[in-house]
């Protein structure tokens, strides 16, 4: 366990930006999922799970394939 901590501390300058970027991507996608409840397929709950559980891939898949046309009419 001690070993892991050492690793983490040693590479903190690299872990921190990665975590920030992943969180930013996830939150952007999450907000979009919540605010635009029209999807090309799937439903809100499914997309929340995909976006939150699958880091990086989830948001990409959502923005590329899940995001629907937003217009009402």
């Amino acid at each position, binding site marked *: 366990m001690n070993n892991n901590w050492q690793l983490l501390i040693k590479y903190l300058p690299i872990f921190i930006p990665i975590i920030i970027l992943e969180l930013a991507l996830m939150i952007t996608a999450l907000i979009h999922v919540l605010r635009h409840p029209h999807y090309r397929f799937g439903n809100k709950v499914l997309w929340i799970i995909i976006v939150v559980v699958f880091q990086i891939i989830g948001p990409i898949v959502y923005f590329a394939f899940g995001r629907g*046309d*937003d*217009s*009402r*009419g």
Partner: protein
Amino acid sequence: MDDILTVQHVQKSFGSKHVLQDVDFSIPTGSIFGFVGENGAGKTTTMRMILGLEKPDKGTITVGGEPVTFGATKTNRITGYLPDVPAFYDYMTPAEYLDLCARITGIDQRRQRIAKMLDLVGLKPDKHRIRGFSRGMKQRLGIAQALLNEPRLLICDEPTSALDPAGRNEFLELLASLRGQVTVLFSTHILSDVERISDRVGILHDGRLQACDTLVNLHKQFGRSQIVLTLADGATAQRCRQALAPLAVQAQGTIVTVTYHGDYAATVSQILRALVAANIAPVSLQQENPTLEQIFLEVIGDAHAAHDA
């Protein structure tokens, strides 16, 4: 009066389907032209050809005296187009979208022009993006972008069919208010819209323009005016029918319908004399003016008759 648009012997087919056989008409400057036909009659295709979005197989089209060419036609400088389902960029605000259009057309003093257009169609110049717009709002933005470059010819494809009655009313009033400033060509299958605002009508059927004239002339030519008599009972109605025999008479229940061409007064006096002679007293006598719908059916009927013969 000059013709702002002339369409000469235009033909178009998609694959083996001959959509337009021989379409030939012109629109005088300043008129509001109602383009009528069933769905799939070729109205949209004709309009897209006028805009250079579709290439005619044969025939020529001129707008403002200049020939229309396929692709980027110069005549589009003086035309405005409202597609049946206008598609915008959802991520822009209406003002941003109009700004994009204004830059492409090369309009001076964009800001004032855009503000004026938004005001005309009743959209607010705020931060709301087009993404959340209803059909009606999109249609209004559509007319704003179509009028942005102060076109001399405004082409609207089925502008009212997607709107609710209130929106339709509003839109027709807007179109009617343009009378005198812009020549309008609009297609529709709602005949009452045409009757309300247009002064000229073209009826497209079977790939040909079966009729194209002013509303007044169409009434004269195709309008079968009718006089409707109501009688006390069925037996009297039958007697009435026999009494009026030389005329075109139909009896149904207690109703007798006389179809006539020409002068109303002359026909009425003829009917009254015959009734007095036969000693029949009608409960009521009413003049029925032909509607555009009757004219439309008449025109289409003629076309079929000519086709069959």
